[in-house]
């Protein structure tokens, strides 16, 4: 359809051949267009306070059988059962993507794997954990830019292992070893630095021990990376309680600030070439600093203006008693948490510590829930916590629990000794337990690319 066509203003066939979507006024709904503004006259006047629950603009686009629906109040009552909604129910749209798994499930799964990784230094088990989480990431990560962070985490993990081994080589290690790999020249240190060694004998045992230890940390990091790749932190935000939502948005906006800043620095450093200056080196970085910060500030102000204009920070009127109760509950709850923690940590507070802590937590949660009333926000398609989410979380938790159990029952198998030097063996039951982490790869439906 070309703009300015004087003919029928909506030409469904020209827009999308073969599909008559509900957005087009084709067919029976033309009546809705013919009297588009009729219901406006009867519309209830806007609340002068500008509160949200004045009659929505849907009124004006309403009309009998109109595409743009009837007034909101009735929509809410009928659960969206307007003629339009029924149309879409009868004819499922092909483009409708299944919503993805609850992001919290992925994070719990990944954190559980991380916990499992801290229970063992067996390189075979750790490698199995890495492979399992890597496989799930490979099958289930989306094509979104934030999913690429996995590679960054893998690189970081490699660096951790390397640094750990280098430290063991350079600074020596308390592991008594007999297999000398090489001998570095030892730097004599004054007597007050006793216990620190620079250089000297490097034994295979010490290197191996450091590598096992580094691998444990690396696995933990890769697990966090997997969580990032499978569910972006900003999706987690949707599950935050209403009272914390606005703070959460601010945090997420601040988080996305960093990638933008890096992109700006890159662009401006490249632009230095156009001025005939070298685009590498520290000076280049420093010179673009101010323009980058200026640009970032301008962008933040523009975003803040856009958010404000889109209703960010609207508050609903809350009766004064509710407000006071909220404050009392939140403050009291936090005090309770402090007192309870103190009680738990001191020797004589053992009796009152736990109950006070629990009461504090409960009061703070109630305060948060009540505080949510001030925010009129609703959630669009909140991620449901369904069977899949339980399965994913369960598989992670099972791995963590079984490895913890194994580390108690059979510590030798999970912490292979380096003195004497032996090849680590793969303990059967813990290995099978680790394989449980693969469950999400098979049960969770894949995101359409």
């Amino acid at each position, binding site marked *: *359809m*070309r*703009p*300015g066509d004087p003919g029928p*203003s909506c030409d469904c066939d020209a827009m999308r051949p073969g599909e008559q979507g*509900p*957005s*087009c006024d084709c067919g029976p709904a033309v009546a809705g*267009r013919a009297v*588009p503004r009729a219901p406006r006259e009867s519309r209830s006047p*806007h609340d002068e306070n*500008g509160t*949200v*629950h004045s009659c*929505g*603009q*849907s009124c*004006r*686009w309403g009309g009998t059988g109109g595409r*743009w*629906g009837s007034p*909101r109040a009735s*929509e*809410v009552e009928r659960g*969206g059962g*307007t003629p339009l909604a029924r149309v*879409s129910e009868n004819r499922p*749209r092909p*483009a409708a*993507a299944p919503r993805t798994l609850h992001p919290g499930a992925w994070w719990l799964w990944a954190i559980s794997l991380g916990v499992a990784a801290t229970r063992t230094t067996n390189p075979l088990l750790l490698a199995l954990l890495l492979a399992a989480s890597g496989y799930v990431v490979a099958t289930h990560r989306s094509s*979104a830019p*934030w999913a690429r962070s996995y590679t960054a985490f893998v690189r970081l993990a490699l660096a951790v292992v390397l640094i750990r081994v280098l430290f063991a080589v350079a600074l020596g290690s308390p592991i008594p070893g007999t297999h000398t790999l090489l001998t570095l020249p030892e730097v004599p240190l004054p007597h007050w630095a006793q216990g620190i060694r620079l250089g000297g004998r490097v034994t295979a045992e010490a290197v191996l021990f450091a590598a096992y230890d580094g691998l444990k940390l690396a696995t933990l990091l890769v697990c966090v990376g997997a969580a990032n790749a499978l569910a*972006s932190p*900003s999706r987690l935000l949707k599950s935050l309680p209403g009272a914390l939502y606005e703070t959460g948005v601010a945090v997420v906006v601040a988080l996305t600030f960093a990638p933008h800043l890096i992109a700006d620095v890159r*662009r401006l450093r490249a632009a*230095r*070439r*156009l001025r*005939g200056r070298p685009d590498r080196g520290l000076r280049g970085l420093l*010179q*673009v600093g101010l*323009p980058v910060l200026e*640009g970032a500030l301008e*962008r933040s102000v*523009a*975003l803040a203006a*856009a958010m*404000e*204009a*889109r*209703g*960010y920070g*609207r508050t*609903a009127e809350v009766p004064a008693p509710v407000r006071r109760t909220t404050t009392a509950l939140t403050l009291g709850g936090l005090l309770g948490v402090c007192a309870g923690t103190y009680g738990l940590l001191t020797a004589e507070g053992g009796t009152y510590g736990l109950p006070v802590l629990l009461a504090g937590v409960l009061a703070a949660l109630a305060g948060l829930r009540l505080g949510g009333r001030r925010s*009129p*926000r*609703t959630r*669009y398609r*909140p991620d449901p916590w369904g069977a899949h989410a339980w399965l994913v979380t369960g598989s992670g938790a099972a791995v963590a629990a079984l490895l913890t159990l194994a580390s108690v029952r059979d510590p030798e198998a999970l912490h292979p000794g380096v003195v004497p030097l032996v090849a680590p063996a793969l303990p059967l039951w813990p290995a099978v337990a680790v394989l449980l982490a693969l469950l999400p790869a098979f049960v969770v439906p894949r*995101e359409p690319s």
Partner: protein
Amino acid sequence: MIRFEDVSVTYEGAAGPTVTGVDFEVPEGELVLLAGPSGVGKSTVLGAVSGLVPHFTGGTLRGRVTVAGRDTRTHQPRELADVVGTVGQDPLAHFVTDTVEDELAYGMESLGLAPAVMRRRVEETLDLLGLAALRGRPIATLSGGQRQRVAIGSVLTPHPQVLVLDEPTSALDPAAAEEVLAVLQRLVHDLGTTILMAEHRLERVIQYADRMVLLPSPGATPLTGTPSEIMAVSPVYPPVIALGRLADWTPLPLTIRDARRQAAPLRARLADSPSRRDSPTPASGPIPAPQQHRFRSRFRRTTPTPAPDHQHLARIHALSLRRDTTQALRHIDLTISKGETIALMGRNGAGKSTLLNTLVGLLAPTTGTVTVGGLTPHRTPPPTLIRQVGLVPQDPRDLLYADTVAAECAAADKDAGATEGTCRALVSELLPDITDDTHPRDLSEGQRLALALAVVLTARPPLLLLDEPTRGLDYAAKARLVSVLRSLAAEGHAIVLATHDVELAAELAHRVVLLAEGEVIADGPMAEIVVSSPSFAPQVTKILAPQHWLTVSEVREALR
């Protein structure tokens, strides 16, 4: 629906009011176009509708602005969010979430709509704007036109009665702009939405406007009227109006169609004109042989590069470039000769900027060769390269680091090894009334572009590249740019412009290169290529077809 009552706005620290005596009313269901040269306060007027001026920007607003009966003095922007939807100049600055679907829902979530209602409206809006296939896409991966549509969609879902748009089509290629305008047209006609829109590219939007508000100069009282009334007196006007004024057509035509109905006598006069062009020729300068892009063949690939020819400033041979996983450029062959002006056109994301960046060595070719003045750009040290080729990037601010014009010029002289004062002389030539201590960020878009151009020209590069130079420029600034670039071309500079602005290309270019999906799909004289293309033909060509005229100035010359 929107009512301005004797409004004036004074920003803090400003010498005088930015706008005064703004007094007009926008009735429900109308599309009103706000026009005027840059810097007259169009954005201020738009901001006053959503309440961002003065609640967010600061400053003092006198008078009264009411939107749907709500006074912006007593209502914060967030309390107007359910009646006014605002889309700013840069859609990227507008997005709060990561994906298309969440972005469409964000505004409704803030307003607290019921989940079932939100779900339905998101589906409706996806269909209305043709975004259904993009619903799950991360916003960062969308093209310019798609982003603009998502930005419009994201403010449509709360069903605002008023839409406020600041230059919705400036950054878009002609096809994407039509896409966005079709949507706006539909909102006005089918849904009775009231739209207030500012746009520099009047040729794209004027035929959709019911009424116009003209801000003739800074601080002047705005005029309101029908588009043809306003166009008769406006200092800014599209080529169709210019032609109408030249030929004394009454009433002034606003659309190609109206103009064609009145154009028969003019066509007859032009047919007898001595400079009439049956076979199109470029305005001046050397004429490269029309060269249609030939089909890639194995034979072609093995052809050895011909010996360097001194007429050619730059030569691109079999250039391909991959970025991440996308093939940005495919097998491009191009030569650029002295004194030639080339317009590089194609839709957003076709590879125009990538091609320019390879010419200045910001990107290294994956395969193929690029030589500029006998050098390989990405292996040449920057100080040597800037004497051969200069690029003014899409955002000229990227080139400017210093905090005064004088410091910027001194740095440019030093970078280029030019004698002191070279850059300042160029700046004075391009911008006569700029003082030394002005901060580059305080300049208008056009002034900033001129400063960046002066900085680049300090090194006297024979090849000058400009990426999207007319974004945000009004007609006067564009005309100045055209005269500057023409004189540079006359001095023997070769100029390559990547642009969506067909009117600018028609004014300047001898040759046009069309890119699509990283391939050259057409390469030849401007007149020959654009005449046959419905989206790339300038207005004058469309009005005077089948004769081949490109610009109003050509017609004016011929009528003398």
